[in-house]
């Protein structure tokens, strides 16, 4: 008889303090030692984690009305513009937004020292933020300007809403040109002088649930140190690309859109970041629990770095020009060793996503569940998977129809 568990049964165990939780790293050795079936009986939940720069992130705010009221047409938070094309005192601050005075790449490579992600980190750190807004004045919203200081506690709502996070897998970036390049994958040295990768590999949420069996819309997660939810699939969710025999995508693939109350989060797990020559962003910590519903859950969650492969892409030519060409593929075990072979040459590697912090997040989520503070939620709807026939589209240039 195979193992079968339901969300309700697992949540009962969480409530009664009998739940057995392991991290996606711990389960690997357990399966090697005891086999899939025994582990499926013993373990109820596997926790995953990832902590890396995730550009498609930001937060919605409602600032409340001053007296007299204003319809905010432009908003700046510590000089960083927020999007106001919604209701009067609502705005969305994007992680990669930059202040109007930033020299950008005019002084190449630009430093991008402060952007939307840094504003979010400062708010979480309890700092007072300079708030400026202008309006054009209406009969109901006559005010045209306000300049004040705000803290996170003083505003009505603040929730993180990230359109694309937790990429299932990612490229390995190299630079085949003869000059240093500055990219969102970090500083890449000439002549394939280094290789950068960005995934927690065996600890990463969607690599442990490659077909989105349990991670779906409504899944409760660790988000930025607080509790959040998967809101939808992420933008660029592309589940139909090539996969290995173990079901693990061999490139980018699935993504998640996540949401959660910013006021519960912590600057330790949402950190503003600057990429030399590229821009500003937000480093986001995400942890997702995977319920052990059957042996298949264990088999998939026991995936290890040596079984997960990513494509090597030249960011000096093939990536910017979208040629689709790759220079081969490497496993995360190879990448994590620090040295790989590309085009017959030894190349040193460096990650951009913190494995140390990913492990810490998986550990914190495990503790929350063990202590009975965090229950699992069954998705209201699953995400489009490998059978969805989703195709990944580029943008076509056309003349007026």
């Amino acid at each position, binding site marked *: 008889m195979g193992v079968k568990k339901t969300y309700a049964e697992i949540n009962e165990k969480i409530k009664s303090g009998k739940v057995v939780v392991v991290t996606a790293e711990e389960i690997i050795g357990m399966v090697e030692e005891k086999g899939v079936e025994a582990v499926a009986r013993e373990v109820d939940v596997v926790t995953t984690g990832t902590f890396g720069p995730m550009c498609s992130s930001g937060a919605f705010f409602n600032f409340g009305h001053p007296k007299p009221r204003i319809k905010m047409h432009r908003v700046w938070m510590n000089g960083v513009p927020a999007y106001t094309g919604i209701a009067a005192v609502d705005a969305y601050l994007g992680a990669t937004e930059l202040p109007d005075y930033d020299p950008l790449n005019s002084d190449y490579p630009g430093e991008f020292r402060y952007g939307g992600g840094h504003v979010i980190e400062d708010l979480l750190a309890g700092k007072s933020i300079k708030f400026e807004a202008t309006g054009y004045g209406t009969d109901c919203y006559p005010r045209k300007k306000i300049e004040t200081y705000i803290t996170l506690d003083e505003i009505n709502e603040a929730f993180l809403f990230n359109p694309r996070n937790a990429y299932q897998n990612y490229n390995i970036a190299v630079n085949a040109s003869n000059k240093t390049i500055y990219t969102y994958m970090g500083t890449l*040295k000439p002549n394939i002088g280094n290789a950068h990768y960005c995934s927690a590999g065996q600890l990463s949420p969607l690599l442990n649930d490659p077909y989105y069996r349990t991670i779906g819309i409504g899944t409760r997660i660790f988000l930025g140190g607080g509790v959040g939810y998967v809101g939808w699939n992420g933008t660029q969710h592309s589940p139909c690309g090539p996969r290995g025999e173990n079901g693990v995508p061999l490139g980018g693939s699935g993504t998640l859109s996540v949401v959660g109350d910013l006021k519960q989060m912590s600057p330790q797990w949402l950190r503003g*970041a600057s990429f*030399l020559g590229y821009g500003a962003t937000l480093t986001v910590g995400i942890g997702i629990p995977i319920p052990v519903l059957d042996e298949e859950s264990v088999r998939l969650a026991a995936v290890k770095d040596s079984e997960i492969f990513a494509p090597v892409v030249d960011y000096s030519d093939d990536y910017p020009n979208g040629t689709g060409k790759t220079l081969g593929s490497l496993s995360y075990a190879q990448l*994590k060793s620090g040295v790989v072979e590309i085009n017959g040459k030894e190349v040193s590697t*460096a990650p*951009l996503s*913190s494995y*140390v*912090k990913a492990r810490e997040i998986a550990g914190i989520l495990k503790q929350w569940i063990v202590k009975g503070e965090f229950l699992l939620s069954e998705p209201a709807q699953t995400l489009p998977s490998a059978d969805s026939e989703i195709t990944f589209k580029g943008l076509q240039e056309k003349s007026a129809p």
Partner: protein
Amino acid sequence: MPSRKIVLRFPSQIVDKPLIYHLVKDYELMVNVLKANVNPFKEGFMVVELSGENDKYEQGLSFLREQGVRIDHLSENIVRNIERCTHCGACTDICPSGALFISRPSMEVIFDDEKCVVCGVCLKTCPVKAIEVNFNGKQ
């Protein structure tokens, strides 16, 4: 020709004197300004690299002292703010001396300041600005 890095601090009343000009003209020193914060209403601060003959160098420094400039030898050092460091690893293959490296299998990033040659590359590379430079002038 020896070159040395020094920190100059000067009171507000002398910030507008052409001190650098005299170092170049009268003492034949080559001056490379590494960092400067000169505000006519406040104490000025400048980190400069001076190269020139030893005796001229000493005379140049005496001249500066006579003008009321306080001189400290620069001891720059790089520190990693362990609270801010996320152990991402992005600095480890950029550091030319191996002072920043990943310890395996924990994947923690270690900073060995004995190996650091203070090249400063990591300052701009670290996405979360966890690397800081101390310009601790010592007499």
